[in-house]
C-alpha cells in the first residue's frame, strides 16, 4: 500500500450553524489540470470511485447549464447519481448533486481551485444540503461510497457504543 503520510490530507468540517460540509485539500497540480480532471468524463470516472466500484458516465455536459449522470456498480449493485452543472468557470464549478435513491434530496456543491503557485492548488469544496439531519445522515451513511460496507462499520460502531 502507498503510505498516506506523504499525501496531502483532506480536511472535512461539518458547519455548526448551517447544513454545510466544508472540504479543503491541496494538490500538486495546477487549477486548470484540476478543472480538466473534474470536467473530462473519462478522467472523472477514474477517480470519483470508490475503490472496487466501477463508475459509468451516462450523461455529461460539463458546461454552464449542463448536466451529468453516472452510476457506480459493484457485485450487481448499482448506485445512480445525477445533477446539473450550474456554472463551470476557469477555476470553479457550481453544481447540484442528487442520489437517485433519494430523488427529493439535492446538495448544492461549490468547488473552487485556489492557485497556490509552484504547481500547487488548494481545493475548497462545500456542499449545502436541505437540513442538518440530511447533512449528518449524509456524513454518516457515506452514501457516495459503498453503502453496505458503510452500514457494516456503522453497526460495529454502534455495538461498540453499548
Amino acid at each position, binding site marked *: 500500500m502507498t503510505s498516506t503520510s506523504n*499525501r496531502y490530507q483532506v480536511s472535512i468540517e461539518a458547519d455548526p450553524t448551517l447544513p454545510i460540509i466544508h472540504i479543503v485539500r491541496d494538490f500538486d497540480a495546477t487549477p486548470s489540470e484540476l478543472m480538466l480532471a473534474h470536467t473530462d468524463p473519462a478522467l472523472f470516472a*477514474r477517480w470519483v470511485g470508490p475503490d472496487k466500484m466501477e463508475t459509468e458516465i451516462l450523461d455529461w455536459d460539463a458546461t454552464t447549464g449542463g448536466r451529468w449522470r453516472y452510476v457506480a456498480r459493484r457485485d450487481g449493485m448499482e448506485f445512480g447519481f445525477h445533477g446539473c452543472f450550474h456554472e463551470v468557470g476557469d477555476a470553479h464549478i457550481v453544481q447540484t448533486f442528487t442520489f437517485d435513491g433519494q430523488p427529493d434530496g439535492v446538495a448544492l456543491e461549490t468547488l473552487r481551485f485556489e492557485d497556490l503557485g509552484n504547481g500547487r492548488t488548494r481545493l475548497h469544496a462545500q456542499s449545502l444540503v436541505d437540513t442538518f439531519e440530511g447533512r449528518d445522515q449524509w456524513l454518516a451513511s457515506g452514501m457516495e461510497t459503498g453503502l453496505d460496507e458503510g452500514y457494516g462499520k456503522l453497526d460495529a460502531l454502534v455495538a461498540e*457504543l453499548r
Partner: protein
Amino acid sequence: MADDQLSRVFAALADPTRRDMLARLAVGDATVGELANPYDVSVQAVSKHIKVLADAGLVSQSKDAQRRPCHLEADVFDLMTKWIERYRQQAQERFERLDDVLAIMRGDTQHTDHLHLDSPHLDSPHLDSPHLEQGAAS
C-alpha cells in the same frame, strides 16, 4: 436496532436549541433550570428537549440526586467523530485517486510507477482518452 439509534441521534442534533444545550453540557453538568436560563423558553420546553436528547443517548439524567443534573454522554460524540472520520477517510481515498490521475496527466513517471502495483483501477480502458493526452501535453 442500530438504525433507530442513528435516527434518534440525527433527529436530536437537527435542532439548534438542542445543539446549544449540548454545547453547554460539554462545559459541565447542568440542571434543566440552568439550561433554560439563556433561552426564552419554559422549563417544560427545555425538559422536552432533554427528553429527546436522553432518548438518543446523548444526555443522561441522574435518578438519585434531587437536582437531577443533566450529563453529556461523551461516548456518543466519539461516535459522531468516528462517523465524520470515516467520511473523511473516504474523501481522502477519492482525492488520492485524483492525485494519481493528475500525475498520469502530467506524465509523471515517478508518481505513476507505483500505481500499477497498488491501484488496479488505473488499468481501466479510459487511459486512452484524447483529453488525457491534451492534459499531459499542456
